[in-house]
């Protein structure tokens, strides 16, 4: 395993009390695997990613328990200096808004060569050559000249390509992408996902792809983790999650979105209610207040994430296949 996350819990102190953003999350990621993490706002998917990067903002937020084994080493035991060597090197991250991680007053060349010098020990000249190669690889036209431009001189889609070039420049073993195409138009999103599919093969990088868009995940990932209220409620191979979803929340998501692959007359079945307050969590299963399948036990006891067949884990007291017949 490249990455083994176990019992990860991340909390934030708020005026109203302790908010548990990530609640006892465990999952593995194999070498070369791409896993999609889906869930709605507040489901904890971004905080989970930031926790792996050890970028949870302090003092409000802190990782209160768990273990994050990356290449056999527990990231939670590293000091900040050691962690800095890993970030941007062995693990890279891209965000929804490239401007939040690009420095507006430095040229792309300076931003790229900095990490190449730090992580790969290249000379400035070697680093520049590598930077131009990377920009060419992600499809920036006229890369040898554009490398000296500033971030604002690129369009949104091109900026996201630059981010990907920077992220992959040190050949990371793990790439964490947090909604990288959400702000982009659909034709530009298709360009970016196409690029990532291609680069994934070339670099054999493992990917954690966070998205609320089940379609993007279906086209890009080998496996999907579904999060709700900070917990993993389902984890399955990509074909299973769409063809044979077992958690009522996953089922609900798939039935609530309009889909071009279904007849236009298909009725949308919304998930009633709204996600729970993460400070005052409901008892038992976090989805129980909105769940049409909930049983007495769902109100009392949190269901464990259990394997129903190799590679497919579900956290639910009910076997929905029996209820649905």
């Amino acid at each position, binding site marked *: 395993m490249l990455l083994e996350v176990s019992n990860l819990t991340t909390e934030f102190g708020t005026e109203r009390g302790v908010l548990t953003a990530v609640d006892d999350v465990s999952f593995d990621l194999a070498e070369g695997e791409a896993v999609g993490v889906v869930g709605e706002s507040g489901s904890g998917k971004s905080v989970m990613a930031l926790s792996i990067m050890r970028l949870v903002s302090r003092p409000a937020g802190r990782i209160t328990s768990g273990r994050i084994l990356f290449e056999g080493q527990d990231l939670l035991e590293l000091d900040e200096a050691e962690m800095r060597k890993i970030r941007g090197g062995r693990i890279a991250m891209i965000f929804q808004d490239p401007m939040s991680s690009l420095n507006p007053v430095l040229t792309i060349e300076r931003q790229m060569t900095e990490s190449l010098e730090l992580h790969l020990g290249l000379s400035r000249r070697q680093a520049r050559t590598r930077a131009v190669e990377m920009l060419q690889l992600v499809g920036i036209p006229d890369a040898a000249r554009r490398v000296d431009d500033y971030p604002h001189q690129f369009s949104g889609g091109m900026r996201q390509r630059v981010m990907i070039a920077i992220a992959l420049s040190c050949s990371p073993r793990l790439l964490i992408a947090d909604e990288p195409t959400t702000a982009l138009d*659909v034709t530009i999103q298709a360009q970016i996902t196409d690029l990532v599919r291609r680069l994934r093969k070339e670099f054999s990088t493992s990917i954690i792809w966070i998205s609320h868009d089940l379609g993007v995940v279906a086209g890009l990932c080998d496996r999907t983790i579904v999060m709700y209220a900070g917990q993993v409620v389902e984890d399955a191979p990509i074909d299973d999650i769409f063809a044979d979803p077992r958690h009522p929340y996953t089922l609900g998501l798939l039935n609530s979105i309009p889909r071009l692959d279904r007849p236009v007359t298909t009725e949308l079945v919304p998930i009633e209610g709204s996600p729970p307050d993460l400070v005052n969590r409901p008892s038992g299963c976090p989805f129980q207040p909105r769940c049409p399948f909930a049983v007495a036990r769902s109100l009392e006891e949190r269901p464990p994430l259990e394997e129903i067949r190799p590679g497919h884990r579900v956290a639910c007291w009910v076997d929905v296949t029996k209820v649905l017949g």
Partner: protein
Amino acid sequence: MVLPAPTEAPLVEARRLKTHFTAHRGLPFARHTTIIRAVDGVDLQIRQGETLGLVGESGCGKSTLGRSLLRLAQPTSGQVIFDGSDVTAADQDALRRLRRRMQMVFQDPYGSLDPRMTVEQAIGEPLRIHGLASGDRRRQRIRDLLGFVGLDPTVGERYPHEFSGGQRQRIGIARALAVEPDFIVLDEPVSALDVSIQAQVLNLLDRLREQLNLTYLFVAHDLSVVRHISHRVAVMYLGTFVEVATRDRLYAEPLHPYTRALLSAVPVPNPAIEKRRQRMILKGDVASPAQVPFGCRFHTRCPLAIDRCRSEVPALEEKRPGHMAACHLVEAQTEKV
């Protein structure tokens, strides 16, 4: 969903509508003025009871078109006709009367409600402005409206921040419905909402349209959402329509290369389909409405473009019965069988 029967006159009509903005760019002493052709010659008709979906990418002018129909953006030329009245020529008094019948729901349920106004004040404001109900009658009407959009009728005293995004969008819808409009421009009404909440609001909008015989212009970038809610769909690119057809025709047989590219770019939550899918990936970025290309506006990104596309503007013509497209490469086959 049944397509409403065609009546003689559409409820909403735009004729050669243009809305241009001027922008001043560059540093002091080196300033130049650019004209942004946000809406650049649009003809449209929306029938009573119909939902016209309007899709396109950011910067294509779809929001400006929606706003121009209500004169929330001032058209540069052309006409908007609402139920026989010329909206573009109306004076302030006439415009106020027309606006009671034409409302708008905005994308951002956070930005479109005044944080210092209670829900009751927010929904009651249009009633007050248009002098429609006061005192207890107004309060009762607000309670009815809240119940109508699926909210607890007793939440009137509360403030917007106490509600979730989906609930705020319901408040925005109740506010638009308060004046009993005939026509509502819905500008990306579900884009800011989580997927599980989107379906709630889409179903609500559909129910309201049927119960109140409303007419919608549904502006969105999400083609799956637009397919679900619309009777007819218009595809916009750089200020003009490139294709207009009934929903079923547009999704079954998109004619314009841009529509085809858009549809092929939409990810589908089905790994089996995604794996064998051949995408038509457009090169380059969405062009700017400040620099509209010569000829067909789409030719700079079109994989099929020929010489004629670079020099001659294709007209929006009926290429199939009830199916309009603006492309030199699409042959017309309009004979009825």
